[in-house]
């Protein structure tokens, strides 16, 4: 796969006068990976994360960034911290400045960008997290989820290669948590390496490429999530709980109903398994079509017309900007997270569905549906919504897509 970006070689750390927080760990993280550090409270997750951007220096052992040992002098640390962005658990502790704009601009200003560069970086970062128009707001007037997004934007504005999140979903409501996890997915899709620490197994299990289970400052298990979370004994030792899907999978197996195919990561996977057990029912239904609408194209006028022609069609939005767009045009969304999977589930029931998304995410929908098709043998059609002939939709030729 791709090359290694972060590596730890037998690192140890002891807080002054306290117990050993990191008791000898070695691991590596590759570029563009999604890593979840999972462990109970006090496992040393936060301490470990603080080592990734040099906030804490290991007592022994070395940390490598981009195959170079980390240096702890001022200049090297600045370079390191520009490339490894750290988002703290409590956004109140991270947000420094009195307005959203000033806070997001904090990093770029200190990196010595010019005024226009700062402005561009801030605009881009706020756009990525979906907080356009919040520039003048003071942070204490924002909700928990919005504050979290400001904190993330503040880090994104420095355009780091690696993003480190300490408990990204703590203090957020379930929908807010899913939103943030999807934002992390988007960022990873844009080429960032994303590392999170969490004790929320259900969130980490479907999301991560690789999971590192930690307990008492040691690595208990480091593997793909199916294996890392798959062993009840390891899970018990780590004071965690089995992800519901894995538990369901193993319980079905125990009852003589082994599901074919790979271990399920999502509801879609497990439904596929169950449906292939009940072969007969599936073959009778012709799968529905998933229509994809790219909001970067000018859909003004066309989309409402299309929707009027397809009453009651379930609509999902993928990505922050797509959700915002839906809100702006007052479109009711049926799905806001796990959108592709939910639409495939609908398609399997023979229903059509619509996904609103941005240009860069369109290929991803195709990939996901194709991958599912190959695996299951069911062919689901994905259609891209293109505005019809200009004659029947006035104003569709403006085309000032951002």
């Amino acid at each position: 796969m791709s090359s290694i970006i972060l590596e730890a070689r037998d690192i140890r750390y002891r807080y002054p006068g306290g117990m050993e927080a990191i008791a000898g760990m070695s691991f590596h993280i590759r570029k563009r990976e999604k890593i979840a550090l999972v462990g109970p409270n006090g496992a040393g997750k936060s301490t470990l994360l603080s080592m990734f951007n040099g906030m804490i220096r290991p007592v022994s052992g070395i940390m490598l960034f981009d195959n170079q040992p980390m240096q702890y002098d001022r200049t090297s640390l600045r370079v390191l911290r520009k490339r490894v962005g750290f988002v703290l658990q409590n956004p109140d502790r991270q947000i420094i400045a009195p307005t959203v704009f000033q806070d997001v601009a904090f990093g770029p200003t200190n990196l010595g960008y010019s005024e226009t560069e700062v402005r561009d970086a801030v605009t881009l970062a706020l756009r990525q997290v979906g907080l356009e128009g919040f520039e003048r707001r003071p942070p204490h007037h924002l909700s928990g989820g919005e504050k979290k997004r400001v904190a993330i934007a503040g880090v994104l504005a420095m355009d780091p290669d690696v993003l480190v999140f300490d408990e990204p979903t703590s203090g957020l409501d379930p929908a807010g948590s899913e939103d943030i996890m999807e934002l992390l997915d988007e960022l990873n899709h844009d080429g960032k390496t994303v590392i999170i620490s969490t004790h929320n197994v259900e969130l980490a299990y479907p999301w991560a490429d690789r999971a590192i289970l930690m307990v008492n400052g040691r690595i208990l298990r480091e593997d793909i999530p199916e294996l890392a979370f798959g062993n009840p004994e390891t899970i018990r030792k780590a004071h965690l709980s089995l992800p519901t899907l894995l538990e369901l999978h193993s319980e079905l197996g125990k009852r003589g109903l082994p599901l074919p195919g790979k271990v399920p990561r999502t509801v879609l996977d497990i439904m596929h398994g169950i449906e292939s057990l009940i072969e007969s029912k599936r073959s009778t239904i012709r799968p529905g079509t998933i229509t994809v609408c790219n909001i970067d194209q000018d859909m003004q006028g066309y989309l409402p017309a299309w929707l009027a022609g397809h009453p009651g069609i379930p609509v999902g939005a993928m990505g922050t900007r797509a959700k915002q767009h839906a809100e702006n045009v007052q479109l009711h969304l049926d799905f806001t997270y796990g959108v592709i999977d939910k639409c495939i589930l609908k398609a399997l029931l023979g229903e059509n569905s619509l996904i609103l998304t941005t240009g860069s995410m369109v290929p991803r929908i195709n990939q996901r549906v194709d991958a599912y098709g190959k695996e299951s043998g069911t062919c689901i059609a994905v259609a891209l919504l293109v505005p019809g002939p200009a004659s029947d939709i006035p104003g569709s030729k403006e085309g000032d897509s951002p």
Partner: protein
Amino acid sequence: MFEEFLEEIAQKNRLRQVNTYLKLATGVSAILLCLVSTSYIAPLFIAALLTFAILFLARVDAKTYAELFIHPVWFGLVSVIGIVLIYGGPTVFWNWNPLPWFSLSITRESINQGFFVFSRIVGGMSAVCFIALTTPMTDLFTVMRQCRVPDVVIDLAMIIYRTIFIIMNQVVQIYHAQVMRLGYSTWRESIHSFASLCGATFIASWESGEDLIRAMDARCYDGRFAIMGEARKPEFMPAVALCGFVFVSSIVVIISHGITIL
């Protein structure tokens, strides 16, 4: 008890989007006109105009405005009574000599002077309220930078401004926790609870100070703070309103020259 921050109103009022300089100019010119005026009429006239602007243009809640106004006015009233009693003058209405070297008197001149000072207090207060209620602190930072206030002062002011809200939040939480456990039920208990509230707040602010340094370090702090420029051009209508206000008030100042109440 902590809910009605001035800042909250400043962030939400209807004049929030008006160019900061126009609002500042309104307030400052009002104060100057109050100081220049030699009669009680002009300051009261200015106060009436600004109160109208606060209540009907900025749409600030009248009760909040009255509460804000009443405290300094009380304070002013006490000072005015002092002025009336010791200012002296030839036309004496009432006189009292409690001690050989100390006398109190109410004269025509002292009443005039007292009322004049009082009207200036009211005028000045309304000007200050106008700025405070329509212009959030964050906009003032921009103006401070443009007026070449040293960066250190502005940076400190901004960090203090941001920290006030975090610490205030913590104080409210601790206070509620104490109230829920009957921390303020008796006088003795109140003293004790208040002391521990202060102690806990001190520790909390110390910790958030350390967090702040860490957060700034993690984001490559190099002694620079971004400031938002004033992107809003002075709008036509508010600019006209400001000119009209200054013009009319100046005329009132000139016409009412030397007019006294008695």
